């Protein structure tokens, strides 16, 4: 199980939901490679397709209403949807934002951990209980022998999430899909959970996709980051490369919208104007164009292809940090609006302490 060998290879993956209005393209042409032992962060606003992408890859959303295409290779083997469902729980596990909805409220914790162990590993009841206590200990649950006879509501949110991780770890998966695993938790508990997942990865070479809307979490906890918007990849790079050399206007805008501890109180925030796109009838050109402060005519009529710049991928005609980008901004500032009619202010004075990444 050498680290740095590809475990999951996804190529041109698409998921559409049939709706009354037409096909909702929730995931549109997504490709990536995840190595053993590594973490892929997936960020983007709500509705950008993060959860559907991951559920789709795991074969969890097949239905007559779903149109799914693309190639998924796990550990060197190309897998159809049904084969991927069979991996789930054994070689791939998943944890979600709200452990309360995935834990059974009327079943004791011990039983909930035992069942998958007995199913996947064929343990006897007493072996499974022993293993359950071991797993609870490994996720830092105090008094595990007592806890196995408790119900989920008798535990705090952070403890329930640890139980979820214990259950997810029970099949000794090679890959973990973590969908906003700490979004509902306090920062101290979040740190505990993310440290725990990192330790498991180090110990066992487990790969992980970490879905988060928190760019701070993504920066500290991932090897590569994929930024999604309206079902598409906007930017995708190794984490440090992404932050050192941010290329996509959407990534830049997302980062600029969050309040920072390092900034003085009452620092004016910069929200992204407008709202995420309608995925049934997305904007014809670049999906971000209606909200992008650099948008030009070309962004409305043509869809930017994904450019691969030494592994740093982005889809934009006027990437941040280029002369073209600076010119586009100057053009829009001079006319007071972008090509899509988005109003923007004049060039800020140099005394503004707020600008980042150009």
């Amino acid at each position, binding site marked *: 199980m050498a680290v740095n060998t590809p475990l999951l290879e996804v190529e041109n993956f698409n998921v559409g939901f049939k709706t009354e209005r037409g096909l909702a393209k929730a995931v549109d042409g997504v490709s990536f490679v995840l190595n053993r032992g590594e973490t892929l962060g997936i960020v983007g*606003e*709500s509705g950008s397709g993060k959860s559907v992408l991951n559920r789709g890859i795991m074969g969890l959303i097949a239905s007559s209403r779903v149109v799914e295409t693309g190639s998924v290779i796990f550990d060197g083997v190309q897998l159809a949807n049904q084969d991927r469902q069979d991996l789930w729980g054994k070689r791939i596990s998943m944890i979600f934002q709200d452990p309360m909805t995935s834990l059974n409220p009327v079943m004791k914790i011990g039983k909930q951990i035992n069942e998958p162990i007995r199913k996947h590993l064929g343990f006897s009841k007493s072996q499974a209980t022993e293993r359950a206590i071991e797993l609870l200990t490994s996720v830092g649950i*105090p008094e595990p022998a007592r806890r196995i006879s408790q119900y989920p509501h008798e535990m*705090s*949110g952070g*403890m329930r999430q640890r139980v979820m991780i214990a259950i997810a770890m029970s099949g000794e998966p090679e890959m973990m899909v973590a969908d906003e695993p700490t979004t509902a*938790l*306090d*920062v*101290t*508990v*979040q*740190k*505990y959970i*993310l*440290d725990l997942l990192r330790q498991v990865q180090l110990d066992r070479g487990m790969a992980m996709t970490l879905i988060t*809307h*928190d*760019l*701070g*979490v*993504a*920066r*500290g*906890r991932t090897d590569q980051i994929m930024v999604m918007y309206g079902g598409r990849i906007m930017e995708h790079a190794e*984490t*440090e490369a992404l*932050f050192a050399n941010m290329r996509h206007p959407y990534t830049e*805008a*997302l*980062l600029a*919208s*969050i*309040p*920072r*501890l*390092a*900034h*003085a*109180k*009452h*620092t*004016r*925030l*910069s*929200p*992204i104007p407008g*709202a995420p796109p309608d995925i049934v009838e997305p904007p014809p050109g670049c999906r971000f164009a209606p909200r992008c402060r650099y948008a030009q005519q070309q962004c409305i009529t043509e869809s930017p292809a994904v450019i691969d710049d030494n592994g740093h991928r982005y889809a934009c005609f006027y990437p941040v940090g280029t002369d073209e980008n600076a010119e586009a901004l100057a053009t829009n500032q001079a006319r007071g609006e972008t090509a899509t009619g988005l109003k923007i202010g004049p060039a800020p004075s140099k005394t503004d302490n707020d600008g980042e990444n150009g």
Partner: protein
Amino acid sequence: MAGSGTAHLRDKDDVILRVQDLVMEFPAGKGQVVHAVSGISFDIAEGETLGLVGESGCGKSTTAKAVIQLPIPTSGSVLFEETELTGLSKEELRQTRPQLQMIFQDPIASLNPRRRVFDIVSEGLEVWGSGGGGEGSFAESRVEEIIRAVGLDPDQTRKRRPHEYSGGQCQRISVARALVLDPKIIICDEPVSALDVSVQAQVLNMLEDMKARYGLTLMFISHDLSVVKNISDRVAVMYLGKMCEIGDGDLLFANPAHPYTKVLLAAVPDPENQHANDGEVLAGELPSPIDPPTGCRFNTRCPHAQDICRTTEPQIEQVGDGDHWVACHFPLVS
């Protein structure tokens, strides 16, 4: 925290709200008691925003609700302008309600799904009898003005119901509904926690604008330290029903004096710093509020705890000579 004490309270004449030695206990069966809030004191000056941070269960919402007497606190005083709220009759309380408004986390759930949004916003005026209705009336134009001020289209709100609006828009509706009553203070309990980062920024900016425009005083609760730092003038940090540290937000975050504040800050991820969270985790579990630790309530998890911390509750003292106060026997800065 830690501790109790009132050294940080300002002169009564300089503040609009003064909460002193607030205690809120709930029965927990078998004769046991949940010590949700245990002797909290703070005040808010007119036009100020006080941020309240701390982990889940530390008593933020209980404190907020105790301020508006929902329910009436177990003990302690809540002085709003000249009025002691804890002693008021039901009817007297009813009359102060419009002046102290509260906004909650779940924007959609807190709005009546069957009513049109314009009516939801006007609702308070009918209930509180502070204005006759009717198209073109004073009340009507005031509602319109406020709906526009929070960034919505009044005509749309006449046709649409809450589910036809996004989470961020519903939070704007909640703010508008509070504003129509011309409140002195708005208490916001996790108003942006359910929102996407970009929408969160829109709502935070809107709150700042409304505060300036309508001369509001805010109490703002969140477990997100960056959000609280951004919107607040002063910040109070709570732990297990007690106050740890309070003061000017810039001072407090730059130089946390309470070990708990420091641990909290060290757990906040930072997109500018890959290694922001590489330090130690907070040891141990949150103790039960039914049987909280004696002395300083943080002593079971504090890396600096000594014997005195287990026996004696620290009182709030000033840090340096600025607006910065801490309840700790061994503050990190003094």
